[in-house]
């Protein structure tokens, strides 16, 4: 569903792109690498038409099998690779990206989620830039006129309303993160790092302009990715909302995508000892029989993170169902409950034995 949307959105953007009105030069690699962030998104020339988000040369759209839930915002993702550079395959963790590589993610709300290509309000475009000194996270917030996105370092709150997939009107107190908060999720051993671009989470079909193709195959074929083994050896994160996939794989994939970026041995929540990244194989580490450590009221009067067969007794499900700061998980990135995600995790716990 989300993948389908991403492809649709990318196509729509390509199709809708009017004759480029802005500078049509290549991506401004120098601006990306500068230690002073550009004041506007346009300065990087990542898109030939910034408003229509028509990708410039070297910028490729992609999607994830199981992404982070962000208050139902639709996210379109792009990877920029400098000329002649490529990503290196890694069987675990994110693929290795060269200096200059930039991950681009635009958060947007269609007025009605059932018509995702119509009346889209762009909220923010986040960049993760690989500078020589390491990764840097920046976010650019779109103006009300939707003509320009401007650097916002200290965060911002925006009222957003939309109609959800069930036709219900929704209100969101949308939170643009501050620069430090980007790092709270995008952190490995205290340094900023990409999360989504793991081989296993990219291992799915994307509807490119020239036709559908597996992303790892496409990246390899076009020289974007080096070192990938044969396709039978590619790891894969399940698609959390694909009912054709095994429930356990969907549940673990959802927890990986929504919790595992902090809850892993090198992440922001390493001190909890609760590790929800997909690689974690020890039941006590991914919550079974594990008592909370620093949860405080977040325990919700429950004693165990994950009780097989009993979602109502599992702290993980309790915290996913909360919208109260200090209780809700994840701590950042949502203000409302992800009903469908919670349902998958509850089912996964209920059928576990």
């Amino acid at each position, binding site marked *: 569903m989300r993948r389908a949307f991403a492809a649709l959105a990318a196509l729509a953007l390509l199709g809708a792109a009017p004759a480029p009105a802005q500078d049509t030069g290549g991506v401004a690699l120098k601006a990306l690498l500068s230690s002073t962030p550009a004041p506007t998104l346009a300065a990087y020339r990542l898109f030939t038409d910034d408003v229509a988000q028509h990708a410039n040369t070297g910028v490729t759209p992609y999607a994830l099998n199981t992404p982070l839930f962000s208050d139902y915002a639709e996210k379109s993702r792009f990877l920029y690779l400098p000329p002649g550079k490529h990503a290196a395959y890694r069987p675990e963790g994110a693929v290795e990206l060269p200096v200059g590589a930039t991950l681009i993610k635009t958060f947007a709300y269609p007025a009605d989620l059932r018509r995702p290509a119509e009346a889209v309000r762009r909220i923010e475009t986040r960049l993760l830039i690989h500078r020589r000194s390491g990764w840097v996270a920046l976010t650019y917030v779109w103006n009300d006129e939707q003509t320009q996105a401007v650097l916002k370092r200290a965060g911002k709150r925006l009222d957003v309303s939309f109609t959800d997939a069930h036709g219900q009107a929704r209100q969101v107190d949308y*939170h643009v993160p501050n620069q430090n908060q980007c790092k709270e999720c995008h952190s490995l051993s205290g340094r900023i790092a990409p999360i989504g671009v793991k081989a296993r989470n990219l291992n799915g079909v994307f509807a490119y302009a020239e036709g559908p193709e597996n992303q790892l195959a496409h990246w390899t074929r076009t020289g974007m990715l080096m070192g990938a083994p044969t396709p039978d050896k590619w790891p894969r994160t399940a698609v959390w909302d694909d009912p054709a996939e095994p429930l356990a794989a969907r549940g673990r994939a959802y927890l990986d995508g929504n919790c595992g970026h902090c809850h892993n041995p090198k992440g922001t929540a390493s001190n909890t000892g609760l590790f929800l990244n997909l690689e974690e194989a020890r039941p*006590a*580490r991914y919550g079974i*029989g594990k008592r909370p450590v620093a949860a405080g009221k977040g325990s919700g009067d429950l004693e165990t993170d994950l009780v097989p067969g009993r979602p109502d007794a599992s702290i993980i499900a309790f915290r996913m169902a909360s919208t109260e*700061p200090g209780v809700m998980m994840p701590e950042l990135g949502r203000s409302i409950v992800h009903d469908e995600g919670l349902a998958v995790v509850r089912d996964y716990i209920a059928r576990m034995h």
Partner: protein
Amino acid sequence: MKGLLITAAVAALLAGQAQAKTLTVTPGGDVQEKLQTALLDAKPGDTVMIAAGRYELTDGLSLDVANVTVKGAGPDATVLSFKGQKSSGEGFLITSNKVTVRDLSMEDSKGDGIKSKGVDQISFVNLKVVWTGGPKSTNGAYGVYPVSSTNVLIDKVTVNGASDAGIYVGQSKNIVVRNSTAEFNVAGIEIENSMNADVHDNLSTHNAGGILVFDLPNLPQMGGHSTRVFHNKVVQNDTKNFAKKGAIVGDVPTGTGVMVMANRDIHVFDNDIDQNQTAAVMVVSYTQNYDDLTYNPLPRDIAVHDNRIGKNGWAPQFPGGDVIAKAMGGTIPPVVWDGVTNFTPKGMTAPIAVHVHFTDGPVANLHFAAPGNVFSAKPDVKPTLDDGPIAEPKPVVLPKAQAGL
């Protein structure tokens, strides 16, 4: 030559000072943006000065720049209120090294108060962290919360109302907690899965439990040891335990003075421990199930000596406490030990030795057959229980810059 060198050194010093600047934030306007922007703009060596006044924040604050001081005009003058906080797990998060936060108050954060994660040289000085509605289970968990940090200084801090521990130091190393006050929290001060802590000259009162030294299983940093708890006042801890279930401190009986759970080399001495209805000092094993081969659930090499122990233990609030108290003449003796000594780690043939040096008698040995096995209790009371002196951990020495704060 020597003169030249000195001149150069002075010049370098002056240059360093010239670069350090003070970013002042004043009340009024969008204080969330103003304050967070200053915390983002600060460069190493800078001070972020938060002028006197009240600041109504809508989100958590965070600092990720090393060697920065965040300073208010005093805890009664600079007040950060998080009553309207809409996101983040704490009021103020610090993730960079060599940071001092001092001279301000924080109120009503939705989660924890002020937290440092993975920081070397973190100092919390002259702070107040308060939940203004009094003790409630809906208050945030920890007031002052360094975790996975090294060289931790907590000095002249007051925490009031935390639904877990007021001052909580977790999975850290080289720690000093001094001159501080913890009141109306579930636990006053808690040192957990940590190495080398000196907890001294604090007042812990009106909590459910005064001072706790715990070691828990299944955490990245295991094997807590070497904590000295001395010259504190641990008096009248009488707030009914208001923690949510699940939190380990929820199991601390109301009216506990000092509690040591698991751990080794813990020394409790020269404290005033008075008016705690359950017990002055409890030394117990971890009783829950766990799946962690690296964990030793028993307290061992524990010394309790030369404390001034007043009236405690007259109405113990743990299961079976009234029966045990009756069997001991109506009150729980100053030191209660579960008496478990038979823990043999997997792969070893004999139990790990347990030594105790309990000279503040009388001492109740409950002789549990296994951790938490109340029904196996064969309590007896002795004037003292002493396997001989236990070497005291060396005083904690902090880096010079911190020690001088």
